[in-house]
């Protein structure tokens, strides 16, 4: 068991090294280097060369990469080209809103999708199944950013229920914790709704498939032959087995959630990692872009590992005999 996880850990590390190396090369393709930001006319050309030498910019690419890795490991992600803020600080202050948005949509997704998929799958080809299927198809085909715009138009401009964008109103800075929370939740509502509509659609569909295939299994046929009620078969016999692939499916949704966060955080000006990344792309702030890539990759790999862990904990068939 532990050998498996050790192997997995190392392959994740290798994956991260490859990812960072290629994104490092990609960034090096971009014009300019950190010294071109220090375009002070008073600096002499000779000093500039010395400066480049000090920063290791005259070294071969692989060496520069190793140098960069060494700094990464000591917690130095470099500085933003635009604000001059340390990259790690910028990322850290963005991490909480992103996690808040993605974890809450993750939990709600689970609560919504599981019953919907169960309903559609167990009532295959009935009206309710067709209805849910059409809804999932539409949700799956909606452009996420457009959905966000429509929600803003409807709920903010027309109805005035929720704020259009942001994380917390400025005047709430001194309010009590409860008021602050309420304010943040109000801001959270629309981006959460948009994310949920799109991500629930795909997941419901896959879950429906797995329910249908489980209900076709021989042991369910046997239970039917014993004359058990449909309710009992569904909730007692199929339920647990349906939960297992669901965990894997949830894990597979994680990259989608992180991808979606880039768009939705931009549309709603939600101050998370995704918005930071998109802004960095616009301002060509390469250190921030690299760090965003690295952190997203870590989050995705971590999510996949967690899904596998949950799977191996819940499914006795996967657990290897000690």
């Amino acid at each position, binding site marked *: 068991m532990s050998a498996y996880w050790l192997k997995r850990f190392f*392959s994740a590390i*290798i*994956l991260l090294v*490859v*990812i960072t190396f*290629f*994104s490092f090369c*990609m960034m090096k*393709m*971009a014009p300019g280097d950190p010294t071109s930001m220090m375009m002070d006319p008073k600096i002499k050309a000779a000093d500039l060369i010395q400066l480049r030498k000090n920063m290791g910019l005259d070294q071969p690419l692989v060496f520069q990469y190793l140098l960069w890795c060494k700094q990464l490991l000591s917690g130095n992600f470099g500085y933003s080209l635009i604000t001059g803020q340390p990259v790690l600080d910028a990322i850290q202050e963005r991490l909480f809103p992103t996690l808040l948005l993605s974890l809450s949509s993750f939990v709600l997704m689970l609560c919504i999708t599981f019953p919907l998929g169960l309903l559609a799958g167990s009532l295959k080809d009935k009206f309710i199944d067709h209805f849910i299927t059409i809804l999932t*198809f*539409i949700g*799956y*085909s*909606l*452009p*996420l*950013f*457009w959905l966000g*715009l*429509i929600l*803003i*138009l409807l709920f903010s*401009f027309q109805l005035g229920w929720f704020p259009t964008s942001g994380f917390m109103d400025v005047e709430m800075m001194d309010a009590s914790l409860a008021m602050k929370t309420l304010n943040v939740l109000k801001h959270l509502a629309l981006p959460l709704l948009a994310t949920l509509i799109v991500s629930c659609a795909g997941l419901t*569909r*896959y879950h429906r*498939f*797995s329910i*249908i*295939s489980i209900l*076709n299994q021989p042991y369910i046929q046997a239970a039917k032959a014993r004359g058990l009620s449909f309710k009992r078969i569904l909730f007692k016999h199929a339920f647990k087995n349906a939960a297992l692939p669901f965990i894997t499916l949830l894990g597979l949704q994680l*990259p989608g959630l*992180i*991808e979606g966060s*880039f*768009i939705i955080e*931009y549309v709603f000006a939600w101050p998370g990692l995704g918005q930071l*990344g*998109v802004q960095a*792309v*616009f301002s*060509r702030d390469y250190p921030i*872009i690299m760090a*965003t*890539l690295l952190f*997203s*990759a870590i989050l*995705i*790999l971590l999510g*996949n590992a967690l899904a596998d862990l949950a799977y191996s904990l819940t499914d006795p068939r996967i657990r290897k005999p000690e």
Partner: protein
Amino acid sequence: MNLKSHPLLVFSCGYLIIMIIIAIFFPMLSHQDPYAFDPNFSGIPLSPSFQHPFGTDDLGRDLLIRMVYGARISLSIGFIAVGIATVLGVLVGLIAGFFGKWVDAILMRAVDCLLALPIIFIILTLQILLKPSIFTVMAVIGCTSWMGTARLVRAEVLSLKERPFILAAKARSISNFRLLFKHILPLSLNPVIVSATMGIGSAILTESAISFLGLGVQPPFASWGNMLQNSLAFMNDAPWMAFIPGGFITVTVLAFNLLGDMLRHLIQPEGNGCP
């Protein structure tokens, strides 16, 4: 097959065929310039009327005409990007599945790497490194969406390669190249057709997202995505500028997804239960 029992298939096929015909032929017949605008125009978008069924944008350009030209660009980006992705995916899948061992290991690790990255962010980054244009959008979307196809083809090849007819072909000392492209490739294409059809839909979605962020198709060319970007400043006063392109994106993507789903049912009727 009874068409009446598949209303959704009729809808999606009909819609797509009409859309493609309009996108191809309308610009050939029409003499209106979609990029011309009146410099003296008031700057206020006109709402839909008989003269302009979809209304106009802030430069007085007719939205119906722009939608047609946008359909040309958005659909061709969808088709070409998926073409690139399918060729890449099939090649990688064939090679990985057929040669196995370290070739397989390296290629599949590459797939894992790409799948662990937020693709939309990679596309945005590539777009600022290259110069955003219609062609880079096609190439970049194509080169970042082949992983699913590669995995599907690899799985097919792995199972095909153990079949007796391949052994028979090998016994006739047929070359690897012939074996791969004449005997294995045609049989491994079924799942590819389905994933390519759905891929067109998601390529159109990706294109619209990056054009919306201003890093995709550049003005004056109209794509459905950058028409939405245009609409941002007029959300409240001219909602049709946002509703129309967004609605067409949704329906078009929906049609491709429905078509892909139907094709799956037709190609693998027994595989009803698996995604």
